């Protein structure tokens, strides 16, 4: 057993809005081991980003509120730390990269300025040392001619190169955990492949754990060790990557995989679409949130929301029904 790096228990986050309370994350528990890559998969509004931002305490409060849970990172509860203590965690222990590198980089500061800031802040380097380290970092993430590019502004980089700069910033203090929030969604497949390859290479050399947030079950297959599927603020399935694709055990995972066309297969029939739309999080759900879109519904589903039930080794699914037989569990 690898050593556990982060253990999250019963995390709940909600937002107070003029329309009412948005139940974004509804009691999720999971863990990440040292050096492990875990993918968190789900559609917009499933709580995947909010839950990870809650861990880093990046939720604006108010309107947001983390109202329950613990997140034990190396013996300390992240949710109990003060703001000053969190500043030491962010960037140094846990780093995050975001979907849109253009909006996460400051357009009026040079890349040098943005890269050296955390190096001086966290590691106490002098400006000269920090710049030297910044050049090394840019080289490490595959930016050609790094010494010259250091003085450039973000708009002078292409989308893929900007994401590399973001990765360089995230890695500048060699964190133990990298949270990547849809880092390749805005990029072309060719550039996506470059970034995935880069992250995997860095994972090997730096021994980081990675949480890769995505809506794309395709990207995940090639890179993750373990997959967590989220729906409506709940974890609905969790498994090792091969088990998840071999025997998906939650109707939602099953439906998502069936709705995906395959580049490596001839078309046989129409895609199997999932009826309806993701749920409205303003209403606290009674029963299982997937009921309106599920084809396996039994009476119990409407009354009681299923907990994660063990269905195999390191494989659990929040469903009252065995999707292979259609029989209740």
């Amino acid at each position: 057993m690898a050593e556990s790096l982060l253990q999250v228990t019963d995390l709940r986050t909600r937002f107070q809005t003029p329309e009412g309370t948005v139940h974004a994350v509804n009691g999720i528990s999971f863990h990440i081991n040292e050096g492990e890559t875990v993918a968190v998969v789900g559609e917009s509004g499933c709580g995947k980003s909010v839950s990870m931002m809650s861990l880093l305490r990046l939720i604006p409060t108010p309107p947001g509120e983390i109202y329950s849970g613990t997140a034990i990172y190396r013996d300390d509860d992240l949710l109990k730390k003060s703001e000053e203590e969190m500043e030491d965690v962010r960037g140094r222990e846990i780093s995050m990269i975001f979907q849109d590198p253009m909006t996460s980089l400051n357009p009026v500061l040079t890349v040098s300025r943005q890269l050296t800031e955390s190096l001086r802040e966290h590691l106490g380097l002098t400006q000269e040392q920090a710049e030297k380290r910044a050049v090394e970092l840019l080289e490490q993430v595959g930016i050609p001619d790094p010494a010259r590019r250091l003085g450039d502004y973000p708009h002078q980089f292409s989308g893929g190169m900007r994401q590399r700069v973001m990765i360089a910033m995230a890695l500048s203090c060699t964190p133990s955990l990298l949270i990547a929030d849809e880092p390749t969604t805005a990029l072309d497949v060719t550039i996506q492949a470059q970034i995935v390859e880069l992250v995997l290479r860095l994972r090997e050399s730096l021994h980081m754990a990675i949480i890769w947030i995505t809506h794309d079950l395709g990207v995940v297959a090639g890179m993750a060790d373990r997959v967590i599927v989220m729906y409506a603020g709940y974890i609905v399935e969790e498994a090792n990557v091969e088990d998840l694709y071999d025997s998906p055990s939650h109707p939602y995972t099953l439906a998502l995989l069936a709705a995906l066309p395959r580049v490596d297969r001839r078309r046989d029939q129409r895609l199997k679409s999932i009826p309806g739309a993701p749920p409205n999080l303003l209403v606290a759900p009674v029963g299982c949130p997937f009921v309106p879109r599920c084809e396996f519904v039994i009476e119990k589903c409407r009354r009681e929301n299923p907990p994660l039930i063990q269905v195999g080794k390191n494989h659990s699914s929040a469903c009252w029904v065995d999707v292979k037989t259609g029989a209740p569990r």
Partner: protein
Amino acid sequence: MTDAKPLVEVQELKKHFPVTRGLILQRKVGDVRAVDGVSFSIQRGETLGMVGESGCGKTTVGRTMLGLYPATSGEVVIDGDDIIHARGKDQLRIRRKAQMIFQDPYASLNPRWTVNSIVSEPMRVHKLFASEKERLERAKDLLGLVGLNRNLINRFPHEFSGGQRQRIGIARALASNPSFVVCDEPISALDVSIQAQVVNLLEELQDQFGLTYLFIAHDLSMVRHICDRVLVLYLGVMVELADRNELYEKPLHPYTQALLSAVPIPDPRKDRARKRTILTGDVPSPLNPPAGCRFHTRCPIAMDVCKHEVPVWREAAPNHWVACHAVT
């Protein structure tokens, strides 16, 4: 494909955007050659896929074909009519037959218009019905057709989800009874579970009305699913065109091969076992495209000749066209 006359014919289409310097006296300093000589045809009832990285000119081809951008040169003939050079009433008549579905269902619907105004606007433009009442009835029918409740006709776009908005966009595109629809990344902005719904709807409508689609997308898996033939663009020029299974199983151009190998497969064993060609760098600027074969700067098998000579567009196998010096 059959020998019947194609519905859509594009000949040597070019679209250059001038680049200017200076605030008052604008001097032209160059051209962005977004589309630089593209020719293809689409049969009636066929779906042609157009793929390539961002900046390859795929959206510009779609927009120029419908006259949304004035073409720099070239011909576009839709159902026997020249859409590029038509003016006035003629132009309106031809445009009725060719419509567009846009990528962003949030930006492409006017937030201050009701669904009825949005969907019946093409009927008003083309004077399709005698009265507003008839148009309203037709708009309601269209809503039903795209799987929305007829009674939602007086609602505003913000009351709908992304998938529902895209359905409204589809209803609007169909309002003038077109025979040809350009679908410009119609599902990229939608959630995975909603994408299949919209793709299936597009297929049902195609069966029902015999529609012809140009399907512009960067999701190569979806393109394989929905398209009959696929055209690959790179920096404004065509690099390969073939039937879908031929293209996905026997890609000839190194660019197509690299594109396909970059698409993730939702199967861990298969995805990890496969050989990847990872392209280095980004697409060069279309302001100053590389000489010779435009792909030579990133091509893993580039030869000397590729730097100087533009490869000829030729039929390397039956119905399989490619432009590459390395393909024999």
